[in-house]
């Protein structure tokens, strides 16, 4: 496939890796790089990038997976809406297995709720057209990448005067989350691999505060293996040269100012919430999107009564610490035993972009754990044995 296959060639990867290795020898200490986006986490594990990097480079898997950062309370609210008589609840497949406090959307569907998986928010609008006697609610979640699509869907619903359609908005913003991470004293990072498709919408300029206020380098990256390797190479160049800049590796997609049309749609339909609860990070000011009063008729939070309760995470689950990069997945006692992709306790095991699911699925645990124990500074505690984990 064009624009995919060319960015996966092994001999080119080897060439970049040699440059990374050369630069890593010039650095005086081990370094920690956070890939913010869950899409990057998935690629890193899928292609085994973490394993081939020099042992002085540690990748921290950040909170850029909308499913992983969704608190249980919001899931409970979604399930409560879906259980309303006369409601068809439409959602991306990613959210189906996320555990709420008692059940998941998948289990709620098995118990009789009309919950349907859609590929696009526009598909949920079509369901509303096809079922004028039903209330159709779309579970809107995701970062700025997905927000334009839901904004345009609401604009289309308004234009067509489709009154039996609404959205339960759980959109979150990446910049406030990055600020929260950078302000966290538990987390010591040397640089960031920046989210590529969020930046496609917001541009690379909004990350200037990372270099100017926090003195950290960031490289906005594409998602193919050569993209990620080149971004790590660019980060190391900055560290070796003692620079802290915002650089853009993904310039075939990302512009400095982003996509103006998409941003205008977001600003027209959505307003920033005063605060939004993130799993693992807690309440982060101005980090979520709600529907503007002008489009209140499409706001499921106003149309339906929802519990709107905060629910504590399972005591055994360490998703919060894992999302912040403070703990590794295998340091959670239920990883690979009580918590698996088939029976997830925490959200990081639900999404293919979650760090726990990635470690579990791609069987990289034994190698990386060994490296962490023997070659790298201890993170927090001795890793637990890989209970029930079968390496590929």
């Amino acid at each position, binding site marked *: 496939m064009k624009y995919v296959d060319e960015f996966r060639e092994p001999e080119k990867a080897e*060439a970049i890796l*040699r440059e990374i290795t050369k630069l890593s020898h010039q650095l005086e200490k081990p370094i920690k790089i956070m890939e913010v986006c869950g899409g990057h986490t998935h690629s890193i594990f899928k292609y085994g990038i973490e394993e081939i990097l020099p042992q002085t480079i540690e990748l921290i898997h950040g909170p850029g997976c909308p499913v992983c950062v969704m608190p249980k309370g919001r899931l409970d609210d979604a399930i409560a809406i879906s259980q309303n008589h006369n409601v068809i609840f439409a959602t991306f497949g990613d959210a189906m297995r996320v555990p709420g406090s008692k059940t998941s959307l998948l289990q709620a569907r098995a118990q009789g709720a009309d919950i349907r998986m859609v590929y696009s928010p526009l598909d949920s609008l079509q369901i509303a057209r096809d079922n004028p006697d039903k209330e159709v609610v779309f579970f809107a979640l995701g970062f700025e*990448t997905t927000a334009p*699509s839901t904004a345009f869907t609401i604009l289309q619903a308004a234009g067509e005067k489709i009154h039996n359609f609404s959205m339960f908005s759980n959109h979150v913003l990446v910049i406030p989350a990055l600020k929260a991470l950078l302000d966290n004293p538990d987390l010591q990072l040397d640089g960031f691999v920046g989210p590529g498709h969020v930046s496609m919408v917001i541009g690379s300029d909004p990350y200037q505060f990372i270099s100017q206020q926090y003195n950290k380098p960031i490289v906005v990256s594409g998602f193919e293996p*050569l993209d990620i390797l080149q971004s790590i190479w660019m980060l190391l160049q900055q560290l070796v040269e003692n620079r802290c800049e915002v650089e853009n590796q993904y310039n075939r*997609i990302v512009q400095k100012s982003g*996509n103006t049309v998409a941003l205008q749609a977001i600003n027209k339909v959505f307003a920033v919430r005063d605060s939004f609860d993130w799993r693992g990070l807690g309440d982060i000011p101005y980090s979520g999107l709600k529907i503007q009063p002008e489009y209140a008729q499409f706001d499921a939070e106003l149309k339906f009564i929802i519990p709107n309760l905060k629910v504590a995470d399972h005591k055994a689950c360490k998703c919060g610490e894992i999302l912040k990069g403070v703990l590794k997945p295998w340091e959670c006692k239920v990883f690979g035993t009580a918590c698996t992709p088939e029976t997830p306790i925490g959200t990081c095991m639900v999404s293919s972009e979650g760090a726990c699911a990635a470690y579990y699925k791609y069987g990289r645990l034994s190698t990386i754990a060994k490296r962490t124990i023997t070659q790298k500074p201890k993170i927090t505690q001795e890793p637990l044995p890989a209970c029930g984990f079968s390496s590929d």
Partner: protein
Amino acid sequence: MCLGIPGQIIEITNVNHKLALVNIGGVKREVNIACIVDEQHPPEACIGDWVLVHVGFAMNRINEQEAAETLQLFQELAAAQAGISTYTNSV
């Protein structure tokens, strides 16, 4: 969640609703092109464009020149490390 797949616009199917047919690795799917059209780029001017598709929307055009330059850098790096001097064949 933020997955995006490259595809090429091959037909405008509904100008009013800003819908186009995109070829994604041989699979043809109708997507919304509202994010990539404006006065300078009306829908009919989008045919042939390579775009990044996410949840049924073409989110941005792919800058073919930037992509080529990135790939050229990889090529030169690999060639340099292999000890081969690169040269351009004029056709």
